C-alpha cells in the first residue's frame, strides 16, 4: 500500500482513473498494470517475501468482491482461481466479455451465496490480470519484468492473498474455496494460516503436483519457449508475442482437462465441415478444430511468460515436503473444517490425491468431509454444472455457517 494508511482501507480503491498510462496504443485498458477490478498496492516499505529467498516490492494484487462484509467481519469467503483463471469469478471479464468463470457456484442464491457471504477473489501472483507478474512493468526498468520476475510458488500466492485479506481488515476467513490450482491454494491456506481459515473446500486438487502433471507442464513451457517470438521472454519489448507456442501449450493442457469419455461423447471421430478425410494436415477432425480454437482464443487473454510462472508454481507445490515429508503434519491441531471433493473421471487430479489429503486429515484428527462425484467430464467437471458438487458445497457451507453463528 504505497499510500500507507490511505489505502489500508483500500477495499474501495478501484482503479477507475483511466489515465493515459492505463490505456494502451489501441485504446484497450492495460489490465496488467491498471486492472479494471479493485487493486491493492503495497509499496517499497511493504515487500512480499518469496519462497525463492528474494523479496518483491513494490507489488500489487488485483481482486474483485461480491456481497457485503458483515459488521463482525466473519462472513468473508476467499475464492482461489485455477491456472488460467482470474479475479472475475462472478462478473464479466473485461478482456473476453464472458461471464464470470464460476457463476454457477458463486452468486446470489448460489452455493457460495453472495447474499450471505462477502466473496473475495484475487488474481494470483505471477498472473497477468493486474496482480504483479512477469508482464507487469518493473519499477526498476520501466519495462515488463519478463524473466527478471522472481519465480513464485503456491505459498507465495497465498502469502500475497493473506496480505490482501489483512489489508481488508479481515482477521479470519469464513471459508477458502477453490479447484485445481485453486485447491492447492486452499490446502496451503489451511496449512500456513490454520487460525485464519474456519472452513476449507479444496476441489479436484492434490497435496503435490505429480510427476505426470509436471511432465505435461514442461511440454507446455517448451512449446512456448520454442516459439521464435518468445525471445527469451523479452517479446513484449520487441512488439512480439509467442502466440503459436502458447496456443500449442494450451492445446496440450486442454486434453488433460477432459476425460477420454467426454472427448468421445463430444467429438468422437466426427469430421469438421467435411464428409471425407482430406489426406492432408488440415483440421479434418472436430477435435482438432476444437483444440485449435481453444489454443487461439487462449492467447488473446493470457500472457505467455505468465503461463510459465504459474505452471511452475504448481510444479513446485508439495505440501508434505513443507512439513518434514509427512502430510498429516501440515494439519496438526487444525480446527478448520474441510470438505474435499473429487471427480471420478479426473485423471489430472485423481481421487487418490484427494484421498491422500483426507487420510492425512483423519490422521490429524481433523474435521473432514469427502465426496467423490460421479461425472464423465474429467478435471473440467469442477467448473461445470455438477449438481452433486453444488449440493455438497452448499450443505457444507451451511453447516459451517451455523457453527460460526452466521445463520442469524
Amino acid at each position, binding site marked *: 500500500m504505497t499510500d500507507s494508511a490511505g489505502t489500508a482501507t483500500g477495499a474501495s480503491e478501484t482503479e477507475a482513473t483511466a489515465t493515459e498510462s492505463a490505456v494502451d496504443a489501441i485504446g484497450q485498458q492495460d489490465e496488467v498494470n491498471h486492472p479494471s477490478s479493485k487493486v491493492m498496492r503495497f509499496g517499497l516499505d511493504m515487500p512480499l517475501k518469496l519462497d525463492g529467498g528474494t523479496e518483491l516490492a513494490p507489488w500489487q494484487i488485483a481482486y474483485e468482491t461480491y456481497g457485503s462484509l458483515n459488521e463482525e467481519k466473519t462472513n468473508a469467503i476467499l475464492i482461489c482461481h485455477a491456472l488460467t483463471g482470474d479475479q472475475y469469478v462472478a462478473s464479466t471479464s473485461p478482456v473476453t466479455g464472458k461471464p464470470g468463470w464460476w457463476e454457477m457456484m458463486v452468486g446470489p442464491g448460489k452455493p457460495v451465496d453472495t447474499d450471505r457471504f462477502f466473496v473475495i477473489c484475487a488474481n494470483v501472483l505471477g498472473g497477468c490480470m493486474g496482480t504483479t507478474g512477469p508482464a507487469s512493468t518493473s519499477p526498476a526498468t520501466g519495462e515488463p519484468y519478463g524473466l527478471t520476475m522472481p519465480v513464485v510458488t503456491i505459498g507465495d500466492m497465498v502469502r500475497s492473498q493473506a496480505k490482501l485479506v489483512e489489508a481488508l481488515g479481515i482477521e479470519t476467513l469464513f471459508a477458502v474455496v477453490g479447484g485445481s490450482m485453486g485447491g492447492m491454494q486452499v490446502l496451503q491456506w489451511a496449512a500456513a494460516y490454520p487460525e485464519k481459515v474456519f472452513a476449507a473446500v479444496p476441489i479436484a486438487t492434490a497435496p503435490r503436483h505429480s510427476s505426470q502433471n509436471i511432465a505435461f507442464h514442461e511440454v507446455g513451457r517448451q512449446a512456448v519457449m520454442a516459439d521464435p517470438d518468445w525471445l527469451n521472454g523479452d517479446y513484449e519489448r520487441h512488439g512480439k508475442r509467442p502466440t503459436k507456442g502458447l496456443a500449442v501449450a494450451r492445446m496440450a493442457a486442454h486434453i488433460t482437462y477432459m476425460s477420454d469419455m467426454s472427448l468421445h461423447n463430444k467429438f468422437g471421430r466426427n469430421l469438421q465441415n467435411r464428409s471425407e478425410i482430406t489426406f492432408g494436415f488440415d483440421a479434418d477432425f472436430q477435435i482438432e478444430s476444437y483444440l485449435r480454437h481453444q489454443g487461439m482464443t487462449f492467447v488473446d487473454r493470457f500472457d505467455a511468460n505468465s503461463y510459465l510462472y504459474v505452471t511452475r508454481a504448481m510444479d513446485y507445490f508439495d505440501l508434505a515436503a513443507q512439513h518434514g515429508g509427512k502430510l498429516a503434519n501440515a494439519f496438526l491441531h487444525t480446527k478448520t*473444517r474441510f*470438505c*474435499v471433493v473429487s471427480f471420478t473421471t479426473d485423471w489430472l487430479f485423481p481421487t487418490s490425491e484427494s484421498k491422500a489429503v*483426507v*487420510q492425512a486429515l*483423519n*490422521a490429524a*484428527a481433523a*474435521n*473432514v*468431509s*469427502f*465426496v*467423490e*462425484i*460421479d461425472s464423465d467430464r474429467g478435471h473440467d467437471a469442477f467448473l461445470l454444472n455438477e449438481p*452433486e458438487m453444488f*449440493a*455438497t458445497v*452448499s*450443505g*457444507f457451507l*451451511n*453447516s459451517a455457517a*451455523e457453527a460460526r453463528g452466521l445463520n442469524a
Partner: protein
Amino acid sequence: MNKHVPNTIRGDHRLISDLITKPGARVLDIGCANGDLLDHLIRSHNIDGRGVELSQAGVNKCVARGLSVVQGDADLDLSAYPDDGFDYAILSQTLQATKDPKQVMQELLRIGKKVVVSFPNFGHWRNRMQLLTKGRMPVTDYLPYTWYDTPNIHFCTIRDFVELSKEVDAEVLKAQALNAKGEPIGFNAPWWVWNLIGDQAVFLLKRK
C-alpha cells in the same frame, strides 16, 4: 456400507444412542449410510460426530445435510485413523458386509476407546428353521437377500460374535438382543437364549 436390515434401524439406533453416555464425545460412525444415527447423536448428545460411508449417494446426502462424512471402506480405510482418536467407534449393521470382520474389529478397538457394534443375528430360530425345513439359505424380512446377491458376506450369530470378541481381546461391557420390532428383549438370558430369539444384537466393547 448401507444398512442392510430395513425396518430395524430405529430400534438399534435408539439402543446405540443410550450407550453413548459421554456428552460431547468424539464419535466415528463407520457405515453411517445417510447419516440418520449421526444426526440423531449430534442433536441428542451434542457429540462431535464423524462418519465413513462406502456409497457415494450416502456420503453426498450426509455432507449435504451438514455432517462430516468421508467416503471410505471399513476394510481399507480405517488404518489411517490414529489410535484412540475417538471416544466411540460405531459399526452398525455393517460388520456382516465387511471382507475381514476380525481385522475391522481390531481396527475399531484401536481407534475407539469404546466400540459399539450392532449386527443381525444369523442364529435366530427362524433362520435355523428355514435351513432345517427347506434346506435353503434363509431369506426373511430382516435378511431379504438371496445368497448370490447379498452384500452380507460374513454373517455370524450372537455366540459367534462373543467368540470373536474374545479372539480380538475385547471386553464386553454391555450386550443386548433386540426382537423383531427392534425393541430390546427385556430380560437377561444366557447367550444361547438370545442367540435363538434375538433378531439382532448390540454390543458395547473395549480393549482389554
